[in-house]
Every structure is written in C-alpha cells, then in structure tokens.
C-alpha cells in the first residue's frame, strides 16, 4: 500500500506539468491579452502596453516564459551583473497578477487575507467543505429513504427537489433563496456580515450543495435499489437471519462505491471556488477571482488556478482510490 501511495504521489508531477503545459498553450493561443480591457475605457497607448509586457517578461520566448513560470529562471542583474535564480511555481511563486498591474502575486491574492480578514481561499474552501458535507449528510439518508420507500411521496419529493435545483441552476436558486429567506422572511440579511460565524454561511451552503445533494440522493437511491434486489440480500431477508444487518452491510459496501467516486472531483470542484454562489451571496472567495482571470487573460492567475485545482483533484482522487479498498476489500489497485 505504501509503495502504491508513493508511486501515485510521484505521478503528481507529470500530471501537474501537463496541466500547466496545456493551460499555458491554450491561454497564449486565446486572442486578447492581460492589458486588454473594456473597449469603452481609455486604452493604454501601444508603446506603454509594450513596456508593461516587457516588465512582466511577456516578451520572452514562449518556452522560456513557461519554464520561468513552472520552474525557475536565471536573471542577471543589469547593474551588478550578478546571476540570481528566480524560482517559479515549484518554488511556491505563482507570478504577479496582471489585473493589479503586478501589485499582488497570485499566492498573495489567493492565500493571504487582508488585516484581520481570512484569505479568499479560506472562504471558498470552507464554503466548499460545508456544501460537500451538506450534500452527503442530507443526500445519502434521503437517497436511502427514497429507495426503501420507492415510489412514495418521499421518493418524489427528493426527486422534485433535485429537479428544481438542477433546472434553475445555482445562480437562480441562490437568488430565489435570497428573495424568500432574506427579503421576505428576513431570517438572513442579503449583505453578509462575515463576522458572524454561522448566519452568512447557511444559504450559500445550501445553494452550492443543492445540485450535488440531488445527484448523491439519486445515486444512493439507485444503488440501494440495486443492492436490495441482489440474490444474497433476498436470501438473507428470506431466511430472516439478522435481515437488517445483512442489508446494511451489503448496501453500504455496494452503494458507497459510486458515491465515493463522485466525491473526489466534487470536493475538488467545490473548494476551489464556485462562481455563481459566490456572486449571489457576495462570498469573497476564489471562484470569482479564477473566472475573472480567464476573462481578463490574467495568465499567472489562470495558471495558478489550474495548478491548484489539479493538485486537489489528483490528491482527492488518490484518497478515493484508497477508500475503494476500505469500502470493498476485494478491490486491489496495485
């Protein structure tokens, strides 16, 4: 097992490298650059833009920009002629954000909070984990209940809920929750007060978790139904031999597999920020930042976001593969 984990950990590097390479290529192929903004704004004079590009090393050959970003670059000080190694992503430096004209680096923007305020990543990660927990804690029991009471009102309500959330989409679901609970019922405020540890988190958690919850509930339901029909469960039940226990053991083992599978990418996606929920509930997270970066062609931020997501995804997929072995000991991955 240890060898397997080590091998998988080593695989992180090629995966991160390729994601970096693909992202870099696509980003540079996309028309428009980091200094192109709303055309109705006053634009930078062409030479000034060139000066900025030069300042950020965007005039270097592409391969060098890439290695400079991912690994390191050797820079010669123009005055002292001393050579200095500047580390890139592998040294934890994810480059300047072009949107702020290099005022901040990507790692600062993402991981460093302002005075007394948590970082953007904290907001996204916390919201993501909560939504994930909500999806599991509500989704799984709901799915089990729906399966045990197939074609009863519980079954249909869980379906209706999932359908509503999916058909509305996160953006509109969130807005409706605000209209109902904040504007009409006044249980919450529309503008969050982040000093409050609980209140501002409730609606965004539900909104963000709603679709996943629906999916997990449906997946659980169908898996439980599947297991319920297995011969050995029927046999066990027929024999009356600790029927319940047998069901639960088998149900758990078999029904958990697909859920465990979807959990990896799901959690990775949730904690690295989600645009619409953050927009509607004004969560100062990384989701808006990352999507903005794409619109603004903020190359460093785009790369940073892709690498961060890749890291979480590969890590969580590794956990998922290990959990497979726990849920179903017969699965061997080596």
């Amino acid at each position, binding site marked *: 097992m240890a060898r397997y984990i080590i091998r998988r950990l080593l*695989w992180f590097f*090629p*995966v991160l490298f*390729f*994601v970096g390479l*693909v*992202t870099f290529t*696509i*980003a540079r*192929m*996309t*028309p428009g650059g980091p200094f192109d903004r709303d055309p109705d704004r006053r634009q930078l004079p062409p030479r000034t833009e060139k000066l900025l590009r030069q300042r950020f090393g965007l005039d270097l050959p592409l391969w060098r920009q890439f290695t400079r970003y991912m690994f390191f670059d050797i820079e010669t000080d123009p005055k002292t002629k001393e050579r200095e190694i500047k580390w890139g992503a592998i040294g934890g430096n994810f480059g300047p954000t072009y949107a702020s004209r290099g005022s901040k680096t990507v790692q600062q923007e993402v991981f460093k909070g302002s005075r007394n305020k948590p970082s953007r990543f904290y907001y996204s990660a916390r919201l993501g984990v909560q939504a994930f927990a909500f999806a599991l804690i509500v989704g799984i029991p709901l799915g089990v209940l729906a399966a045990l009471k197939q*074609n009863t009102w519980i079954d249909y309500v869980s*379906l209706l809920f999932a*359908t*509503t959330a*999916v*058909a*509305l*989409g996160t*953006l*509109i679901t969130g*807005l409706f929750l605000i209209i109902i609970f904040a504007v009409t019922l006044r249980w919450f405020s529309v503008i969050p007060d982040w000093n409050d540890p609980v209140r501002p988190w409730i609606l965004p958690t539900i909104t963000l978790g709603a*679709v996943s919850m*629906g*999916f997990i509930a*449906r*997946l659980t339901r*169908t*898996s439980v*139904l*599947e297991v319920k*029909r*297995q*011969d*050995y469960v029927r046999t066990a039940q027929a024999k009356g031999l600790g029927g319940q226990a047998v069901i639960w053991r088998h149900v758990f083992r078999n029904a958990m*597999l*697909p859920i*465990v*599978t*979807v959990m*990896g*990418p799901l959690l990775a996606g949730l904690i690295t920020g989600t645009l619409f929920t953050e927009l509607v509930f004004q969560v100062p997270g990384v989701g808006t930042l990352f*999507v903005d970066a*794409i619109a603004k062609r903020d190359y460093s931020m*785009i790369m940073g*976001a*892709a690498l961060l*997501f*890749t890291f979480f*995804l*590969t890590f969580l*997929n590794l956990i*998922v593969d290990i959990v*497979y072995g726990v849920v*179903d000991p*017969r*699965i*061997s*991955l080596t």
Partner: protein
Amino acid sequence: MATSAPAVKQRAFDQTERRQRTLWGDAWRRLTRNKAAVVGLVVIVMFVLVAIFAPLLAPHNPVLQTNSNSLRPPMWVDTGNPRTTGVPEHVLGTDTLGRDTLSKLIYAARVSMIVGLVPTIFVTLVGVTIGLISGFAGGWVDNLMMRSVEIVSSFPDLLFLITLNVALRDTVFGRTANGLLLIFVALALVSWTGMARLVRGQVLSLKQKEFVEAARAVGAPRWQIVLKHLLPNTFAPIIVSISFLIPGFILGESVLTFLAVGMRPSVDPTNQFPTSWGVMVQEGYNQLSSGPWMLLFPVLCIAAVMLAFTFIGDGLRDALDPRETK
C-alpha cells in the same frame, strides 16, 4: 447475482438465450407497465414532435420583432393597463424586443432537445468505454487513463472553449447548423471524465466478484466478460448520471453561447435554430423583475425534460434488470 460459480454459468447461458428471444420484448412490456416511465416517454415524444414541427406549431415567427409590443405578460394577466395586459396573440407574453415567448419556446425546443441528447450520447459512449477499459485492465493502463482524465478535467475549459471558438467559428465546421455542431463537440470534449471515473469505480469492484471470476475460469473471452457481465451491472449509476447530464447540457449550452461558442443571434426569419431554452433562461434572468415569464417558461421546460428522463431512466433500469420478474 448468484453466489456460486456454476449457478452463474448457468444463468449466463440462460440469459444469452433469453435475451435473444425475449429480453427486449420483456423490457419493453415492463417499461410500458411503469406509469411514470410512460408519462416520461410521452413528454419526450411530445417535445420531439414540437421540435420537428415547430414551424407549423409556432403562432409567430420567433425572430419577428414588433415595435411597442415589448414585455407583454402572458395572456391571462390583466393589469388594467392596455400596454401591460396580456393579449391572446401572445399566449405566453413577449420579450424585450416584442418577440413571442411561446414561439421562441417552441423553436428553442429544437436546439435544446438536440443539445441535451447528442453530447450526452457522446459522453456516455466515450466515458463508459474508457471507464470499462481502465477499470478492467487495471495496472498501468488504468493509471495512464486516469491521469489523462485528471489532466482533461483540470485545465480551464472556459478558456479552451473560447480558443476553440475563435479558431473554428469561421470554418464550415463552426457554421454547421448555426454553430450547433461546435457546441456538441465543445460540451462533449470537456464532460466525459466524470462518467469515465464512475464506470471505472464500478468495474473495479465488479471484476472481483465471483461471477466474473467464474466467467474467467470457464475461459470466456475478455470482451464477453466486459460486455455481458460488467457493463450491464454499471447501468444504474450511468442512468442517474445521464438524467443530470441532459439538463446540465441544456443550461450549459447557454453558458457557451455567452462565451460566443455556438449559436449566433439572428434576425433572419428563415433561421431554423434561432434560440434555445438556455439562452431564454439567461434573457429571463436579466429581465427577472420586469418580465418573470421570460424566465419561468423555459425553466419549466427544462425541468419537465429532466423529470421525464429521470422517470424513463428509472423505468428502463427496472425493465432491463434481468432479475426483475414481476
């Protein structure tokens, strides 16, 4: 499935024979006996017919703009003000530019039904194939495939789609069916990874089960094991996935439209694919305060399609289950 090898073997033989004779017939009979599934089928068939016969059904041309007729509510709304009272010509009201909501909805069914279904088929085929191979082969094949899945699901797809569009929008490919083809490809290319991992996870567990061991022991060829023993047992989660993929694509299409991938807006009355439900949802969201009907009706359509497919999926799963004998 059975717990002992001989029984499995026996059953496998039974199934092969039965399948040839009556499995599909049985399944169909079981499916039609399931009320919910029948309702779902009827809804889908209805939408498909609406899509096909849109020009005959639509009361107006969906791109026809009528001056001073904007934001008219549905016909049953009476505000007392002739300007903002519904009129029978526009059963479901009009949008900002005075276009008829019902006609748009009817034409939009074309794009949305296709966009919901075609990429789903692609995603299912690719995802299931890769998942089956990866899970069954295991070892380095599995590792390589899953790492590729990680790479594909990690790079920024929005950016990829923008680039794809810029590169292809003026080619024949990008113009086919008002850009719809490009939408299919775009949606499919970035969405198959989840399905692949789901199927692979199932296969990892299934291939250790006794009946598969047994099939192997009696020397069944590998393709047979994969197709006859593994694939049918992964149907359940696949069907759930599909029922979420379809509405996801219908809404996702509108996101793509606003990345400029896909359908171009048009005022050409001969345009066969003028709008989609996803685009209508977007327009409706912008007008939420002043024209909520613009949001309500496309959302209801998407919800109806999703429910219909869920019911069909549930029914299909039950119907295809060889153990089900009721």
